[in-house]
């Protein structure tokens, strides 16, 4: 019983770290630009497929695809911001919602067209198998992916606090007009945030591809949960998203274990609703 509890807790933490990394990119884009990127889950899918194809066609292990995914999604994010999102930034709010929604539908359908709706898996990544701690078993790729997620989140945190560019991003997040008056190129900061946010979810995709199946609609549930995390953690708060991600992972796993798995997402969403009710700005907003 207590072994199972420990195993559940560990698994909750692992999936939670993954959720955090996926949600951080989303919350960053929201914080800086006040727009929700509905294509976020599709960027995750592109990251996963990039890693899959590098592995299948060139034998590159997903561990080494991480930088490729990071750069590729950075560029993609930059381009989508520059040629689509920036055009509607001054337009009505609805246009901003619709533009990323359109990108999402386009990417998902293009993926079905290009790669078929089939399920793929990276069979034998370098990191493979399970670690046994007594009776508790932990999947190695899952554990490494989660540690990697934490590392990337910390790196982002340091980048924002310690570098000049990072500080500029935070300044825009706090107050766009003041930042503009201080001589910060807000347009560039927007593009950079969108690109970094996309890049982070690309990295998450590469990590996830080490142990999760890959298909064009894989982002669906991850996307929904990351919206929930962003709201729970406080819109735009990176630390908030990090904590909320882990919290949701643990609650989901333990809730499913102790109550009923059929309601594990209901518990997660109920927690979100209660938070929004008591503390509308989220945990750290």
């Amino acid at each position: 019983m207590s072994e199972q509890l420990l195993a559940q807790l560990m698994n909750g933490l692992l999936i939670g770290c993954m959720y955090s990394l996926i949600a951080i990119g989303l919350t960053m884009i929201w914080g800086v630009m006040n727009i929700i990127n509905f294509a976020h889950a599709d960027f995750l899918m592109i990251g996963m497929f990039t890693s899959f194809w590098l592995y299948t066609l060139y034998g590159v292990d997903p561990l080494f695809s991480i930088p490729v995914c990071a750069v590729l999604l950075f560029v993609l994010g930059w381009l989508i911001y520059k040629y689509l999102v920036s055009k509607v930034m001054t337009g009505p709010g609805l246009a901003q919602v619709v533009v990323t929604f359109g990108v999402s539908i386009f990417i998902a359908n293009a993926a079905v067209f290009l790669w078929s709706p089939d399920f793929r898996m990276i069979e034998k990544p370098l990191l493979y198998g399970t670690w046994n701690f007594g009776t508790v078993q932990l999947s190695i790729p899952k554990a490494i992916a989660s540690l990697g997620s934490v590392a990337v989140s910390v790196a982002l945190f340091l980048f924002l606090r310690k570098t000049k560019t990072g500080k500029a991003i935070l300044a825009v997040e706090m107050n766009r007009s003041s930042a503009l008056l201080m001589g910060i190129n807000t347009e560039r900061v927007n593009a950079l945030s969108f690109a970094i946010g996309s890049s982070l979810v690309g990295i998450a995709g590469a990590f996830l591809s080490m142990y999760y199946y890959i298909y064009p609609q894989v982002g669906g549930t991850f996307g929904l949960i990351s919206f929930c995390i962003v709201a729970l953690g406080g819109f735009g708060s990176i630390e908030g998203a990090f904590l909320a991600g882990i919290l949701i992972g643990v609650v989901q796993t333990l809730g499913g274990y102790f109550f009923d798995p059929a309601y594990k997402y209901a518990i997660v969403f109920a927690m979100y609703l209660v938070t929004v009710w008591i503390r509308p700005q989220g945990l750290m907003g």
Partner: protein
Amino acid sequence: MDRKRSRILPYALTLLLSLSLASAGVAADQVIKIGAVYPLTGAIASTGLDCLHGAELAVDIINGKYPDLNLPLAKTEGLPNLGGAKLKLVVADTKGEPRNGQAEAERLVTQEKVVGMIGAYQSAVTKTASQATERLKIPYVCSDSSSPTLTERGLKYFFRVSPHDAIFARDQLQFLKDLEKAKGVKIGTIAVLYENTEFGSNVGKQVLMLAPEYGFKVVADISYSANATDVTSEVGRLIRANPDVLMHASYITDAILFTKTFKEMGFNPKGLMTFAGYIEPGYLPAVKADGNDIIVRSTFALDLAKRKPLVAKVNALFKKKYGIDMSENAARSFAAPFVFADAINRAKTTEAEAVVKALLATNIPGDQVVYPWKGIQFDPKSHQNIHARGILVQIQNQNYVTVWPFDSAAANVIWPFPAWKSRK
């Protein structure tokens, strides 16, 4: 006389010409449109496409000339009683959502003017789509959804060819009984695990209801959401319950996720008995050898060809067209167009009431189907095919082989399920 003839001749010629044109019109232009609703995008798009391929091949066979195939209307081109009219599938995407199933079925009937409907695969979607066709008075022949409730609604226009989950659940439990007798093993407890929509919860209900009748004790009853991102809590509960046998009703994404998690967490029942997800064509390519030794319910297996040469011939055609072997899904969906074509041909019209009457009189013999059945005949009340039955296949060396009923098995069943640690 001459003058008379010269006056009649143009009329006669015109009459002759228009008659021949008219009959040519019936033969060449008359197309019988059948609506096909399947999930072609969304989480189970690969399954939907596979089903559609089965139905498309059936339509090809009906429309073309295949003298060496003993299938209804294969030897003739089109429907002979309707001047060789051809069948045409009008395809619509449900995205796997019940509301789309209903909307698309309505659109196909009212705008595309289809005269019949097939498909949906997911029981929850078939349910809403067939409610739409019932209201619009259009016959629906389903050969790929297995929820028992579909044929318990007393619908007038809905027919089902394939077995439903009450039949399958009984098969699985009967298999366990037969196994106890044949191998001297003792099976006491079972756990039931099922996704929580129409399909899964009905399987769960059936197994829970029937298990005591067969003398098994249910030690866990777990439902879950099929689009879960992580199932460690579900598997944790299974480990806690420690059943002899697990019965699992799933779609494909959850089947893949559970297989990985069973292995990771070392969940080792003596038998893994499953429904649906584990036999979808995307499953084995995704999990490879981890799928070995799992038992799945089926209506079709390629090794049936040993006793039914028709299976090999149909599979050859399928492979030629799509490049892969015919899966169970494709094989199930393959039935509906034949049933429709046969009924419309006998009714000699596409008028709904006459087609329903003809469907009720359907009697396709067992040697004209690719399944191990005595044929296709509908129960006059429920409209369920009374001959539909299931087989059990086991994944051995990454192939689906028939293991039950024992008298038609192609291989011996591997039992108990080898421990994950001892597998590579």
